[in-house]
């Protein structure tokens, strides 16, 4: 392993360590009603983000392009964006702070997965030299962040509906978690949609075709329509509570398949870039 890769991997492990520590103190703080631990966990996560940001920037300078080529770069930057989205939203909606119970482990899992991919240097293809690609990727990452928050609230809602342990009193009221999951699903729907459309514009300027029924494109649209159905059911058919939470979790699984799995399908043009 050359020194650059060693630094990359080492710093990522450093970030993972801080995130794991943050998770442990966060969960313990919530479960055992230790406010200091919970507040401390946010600082630890912030410190982890700083280390994480440093290694993303470091690798960016080495490879000469943003973190959107190799699977390791994609997972790592996605994890950072998910945590950044959580902190931004928690600032405006403090009630969602306990979503950290799900968000923090999701983040360190993504970073750990990133480390197990070969962080090899990928060169930027000529088709990637456009602002539409940046917008396409950026909005998908923001969407992922909002969807993870919505997932956290749906999971916590289900947890609370299955068993009412003493520590769960520290979580928001189930009705509150339900409505916030709905709201964040709406946010995710918006950003995902903008990501799809920015990708279409990029494809038109790069390849002359705004839609090619590529597996990534198709599954991305399928996911968006599925979220659309969820939102319609919520708004017009009164879907709420447990059915809504389970439905959203299904939509989220579909989003992960569309986001991470289809880009590796051989028939997709995206697979050329993510080998």
């Amino acid at each position, binding site marked *: 392993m050359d020194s650059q890769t060693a630094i990359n991997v080492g710093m990522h492990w450093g970030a993972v360590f801080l995130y794991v520590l943050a998770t442990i103190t966060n969960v313990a703080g919530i479960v055992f009603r230790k406010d200091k631990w919970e507040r401390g966990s946010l600082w630890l996560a912030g410190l982890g983000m700083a280390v994480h940001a440093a290694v993303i920037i470091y690798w960016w300078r080495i490879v000469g392009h943003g973190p959107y080529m190799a699977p390791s770069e994609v997972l790592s930057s996605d994890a950072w964006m998910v945590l950044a989205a959580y902190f931004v939203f928690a600032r405006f909606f403090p009630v969602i702070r306990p979503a950290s119970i799900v968000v923090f482990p999701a983040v360190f899992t993504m970073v750990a997965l990133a480390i197990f991919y070969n962080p090899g240097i990928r060169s930027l293809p000529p088709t990637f030299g456009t602002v539409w690609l940046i917008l396409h990727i950026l909005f998908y990452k923001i969407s992922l962040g909002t969807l993870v928050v919505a997932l956290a609230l749906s999971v916590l809602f289900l947890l609370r509906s299955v068993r009412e342990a003493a520590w769960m009193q520290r979580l928001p009221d189930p009705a509150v978690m339900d409505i916030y999951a*709905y709201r964040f699903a709406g946010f995710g729907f918006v950003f995902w949609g903008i990501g799809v459309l920015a990708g279409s514009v990029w494809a038109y300027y790069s390849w002359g075709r705004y839609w090619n*029924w590529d597996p990534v494109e198709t599954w991305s649209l399928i996911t968006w329509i599925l979220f*659309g159905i969820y939102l*319609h059911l919520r708004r*017009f058919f009164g879907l709420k509570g447990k059915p809504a939470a389970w439905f959203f979790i299904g939509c989220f699984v579909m989003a992960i398949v569309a986001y991470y799995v289809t880009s590796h399908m051989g028939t997709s043009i995206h697979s050329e870039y993510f080998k």
Partner: protein
Amino acid sequence: MQSLRRLFTKRSTILSLIILILAAMLLASFVPQTFLMSKEGIKKWHSDYPAWSLTAEKMGLTSIYTHPLFALVLLGASASLAFSSLDSVRRAVKLSRGTVEDATEWLRFETGRPAADIEVYLRKHRYSSRNGSFVRYAPGYWGAPMLHIGFMVVIIVSLWMALTQRRGLVSLVEGEAFVPGQAWLASEEGLLVKPLILDDAVRLDGLDFEFWPSYATKRIGSHLTFVSSRGDVTRRTVEVNSVLMHKGVRVYQMLDFGHAFAVQVVDSSGKSNLTHLLIHRQSAPDKPEYVTYEDFPEKGRTLKAKYFAEADRSSLNGKNPELVLRIDEKGKEVGQALLTIGGKADLAGYHFRLEGVRRWTNLTFVRITGVGGLFCGFALICLGCVLHFFVVPRVAVLQPSPGGTELCWRAERFEDFFKEEFDTLRLVFEGQAKDG
């Protein structure tokens, strides 16, 4: 017409149509669709999955998008969208003017404060007076209409583009011209138009490419000359992400390129044939891959060709490429030869001479209208989404009551989410919170 409108705007109808479209897309993503695949692709699918492919074809699963039933579902969805758009525009106009719909289920509280005081508070908090009610974030009423109209625009324009687009793919060797009416390497045109024929001849004057240190393509561009029937000459350059527009046709630089080898092949009887072998670029200076030419130079034999951009395997920007030819018969190699420019070799009873080497690339020509409309549709969808989910209108109505003033309030969407705002209002006017 009214009953049709009611049918297509029923929520269960809308939801059912969306679910049907989704189901069709899900199915079509697992079964290859014939209109999207090439003949070779279909052949390969048949050979990989013989039993399943036959079953799928018998069930019509390979033609989901072109099936009349799917067209019917799309028509229903379009009608639903059209009626919904009209309804949502009417509603947005009504609500933007401050018209209050049935307020019986709104949140409300009574306060001893006069209406004038409450009005001052509301105006301070960006509520504007409209037709007797107070509205905040009124543009949010236009989210749903814009979203629906955006979808309609995209669907209509996409259909127009699919029916009228014309595109053609051509491989050009440096110095070679493609003249109007010549056959494309591949072409596609909508049902309402004829195949694309260019107005001018186009010649590839030169091809530039650069590589990253990893040998991946960094940049590729073609220098083209367009020659009209009157002899007018226009010189242009096209690169990836730098599309060229010429007389209504967009020219795209494709990522396919390599070297074209002009090989003179002489058989045992002395008959000669000049063949151009267009071989894709290598992935690395010392890692070429063979291209196969079946039944060449004669039936039953296969010619395999690869090349090194530089004979000494040092770079991909070779001035002295080396061509490797190999002839197989019944799967076994019967001869191999290495040729540089001007070089000759005898191989399996044939005489090969490499006459010259030039670069080649693929270019796509597209004549299409409606792209501006399509992007407008995209913009409407994005703006509609943002307005609908981020800009939620709040309405307050003041009514005299026995105790003073009754304030009725609602958020247009996500009522439970914004209930805190109403609670704050109530606390302020019950004197339990500061007017901040």
